[in-house]
């Protein structure tokens, strides 16, 4: 239990800070977006940090969740919470459909996953499906618009996800996943259920993104396919996680806080300059600090949350 204290403390601090900001700060959309990116970064951390699979098409789950939510509201007249259930189901279904991709390794997996996200986008945005998805013309969910409630839902999801990551980090499960990442064959010989655990991590990660997508749809309520399938969601989640340090709790939080902060300072007014800084940051990171900022501390033997 004592080992858990720093992790739990950090999680509690983050949740409290977001809540305070939401209620005290005028720009509540900004606070909401921060929350969404904390979720996406931790969700990606669960799969990349512990299994080594880098899902470049992570946004596919986010978009699927957003449209799962939208379809439930538009066609079934669902209330927001059941619609979120459908968002999660959409993400899980997509995740299950894509489990065969886990047979691929390294760059093959990343590319195939990117192509899969692209394919989902093209199906949803297809004019031929206009009666169902409104195709490229976007959806409006004004009937369920509720910024405060959707923010609280995001906060709850973040809390849950932080719990999952803490459990992965400190428990046998995360250890087993790292063993699989290091050497799947040895893992099998150690009696670890390799396929089952990989799929589990994959689905947890997919579910997190899909629920985040559903909540996002609920919060912004009017959006187009490009909005929720924007590759930036994948990219941001990946860069935030790598920047801070994967397989830690604080790494993705640190990355998201610093870089999404930077994005809001300069990214919105001069996106090209932001993209330039971003690209340079990634290159420098991969060359000089491939395991993220926190590796400066962990390599010296400090135990960071």
């Amino acid at each position, binding site marked *: 239990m004592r080992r858990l204290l720093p992790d739990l403390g950090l999680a509690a601090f983050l949740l409290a800070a977001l809540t305070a900001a939401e209620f005290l700060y005028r720009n509540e959309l900004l606070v909401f977006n921060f929350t969404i990116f904390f979720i996406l970064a931790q969700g990606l951390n669960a799969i990349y940090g512990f299994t080594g699979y880098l899902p470049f098409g992570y946004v596919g789950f986010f978009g699927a969740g957003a449209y799962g939510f939208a379809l439930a509201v538009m066609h079934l007249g669902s209330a927001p919470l059941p619609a979120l259930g459908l968002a999660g189901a959409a993400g899980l279904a997509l995740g299950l459909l894509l489990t065969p991709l886990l047979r691929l390794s390294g760059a093959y997996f990343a590319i195939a996953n990117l192509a899969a996200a692209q394919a989902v986008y093209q199906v949803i945005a297809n004019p031929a499906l206009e009666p169902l998805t409104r195709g490229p013309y976007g959806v409006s969910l004004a009937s369920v618009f509720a910024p405060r409630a959707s923010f609280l839902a995001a906060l709850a999801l973040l809390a849950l996800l932080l719990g999952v990551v803490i459990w992965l980090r400190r428990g046998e499960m995360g250890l087993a996943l*790292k*063993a699989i990442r*290091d*050497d799947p064959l*040895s*893992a*099998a*010989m*150690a009696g670890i*259920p390799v396929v089952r655990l990989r799929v589990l991590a994959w689905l947890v990660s997919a579910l997190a993104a899909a629920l985040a997508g559903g909540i996002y749809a609920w919060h912004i309520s009017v959006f187009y396919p490009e909005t929720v399938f924007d590759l930036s969601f994948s990219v941001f989640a990946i860069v935030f996680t790598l920047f801070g340090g994967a397989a830690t709790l604080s790494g993705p939080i640190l990355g998201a806080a610093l870089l999404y902060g930077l994005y809001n300072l300069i990214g919105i007014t001069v996106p090209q300059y932001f993209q330039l800084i971003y690209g340079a940051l990634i290159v420098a990171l991969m060359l000089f600090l491939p395991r993220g900022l926190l590796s400066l501390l962990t390599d010296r033997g400090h135990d960071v949350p």
Partner: protein
Amino acid sequence: MTSPEPPAAPPLLEVRGLVKRFGGFRALDGVSFTLRAGEILGLVGPNGSGKTTTLNVISGLYAPEAGEVRFAGRPLRGLSPRARVHRGINRTFQSPRPFASLSVRENVRLAARFGGRDAAPERIEALLERLGLARWAARPAAELNTGQQKRLDLARALATRPRLLLVDEIAAGLNPAELESMAELLAALAAGGTALLVVEHLLGFLGRLTERVIVMNAGREIFEGRLAEASRDAEVVRVFLGEAARR
């Protein structure tokens, strides 16, 4: 040194007529032998003769094209490596394969927990002690040298409580003192009832463990019998002299 079992007891491992092809190439071409509980069988042969492939087939990494493997009287066909681990089969690797980013203790603990279903700390510490790894227990496995990593492979295998242990060239790269304690350890395992299939190039080391060997060449057994007699067998001599000449 092999403990004479009552002849009625069924063998623990029965291997019959294994054939394993890679493309058009036959890596195993009809391999058969049996092994009883508590017995040690040596498997020798020149490079590429199919020794590791034999272990890979028994541990379930490759499915054979023909032949069968029975363990404790039941066929293993179709079982995954992990299912075989749970039946009581484990192995070490010719070049060790630790979980590099985990600590030595975590390596063993995972195998004890998932493979042996008993991760009692005392058992793990005892295993680390027995394999001479206790001093490195908290270090990342990546930092161990090859000899230590081979012992870690063995510790992980033992943590799953195997009844049959497949050992692939564990002596290569060990110093004399390490060889001595490794031989003692393996002999003690056999004395405790574990069956051992030991692939080994170092015949001196093997001779300390067992008299009974199989000599393989090009996927076939060319000799089965006493180690001392193998060196007088014409074909064995030809195969090994041929190899010596190639080097």
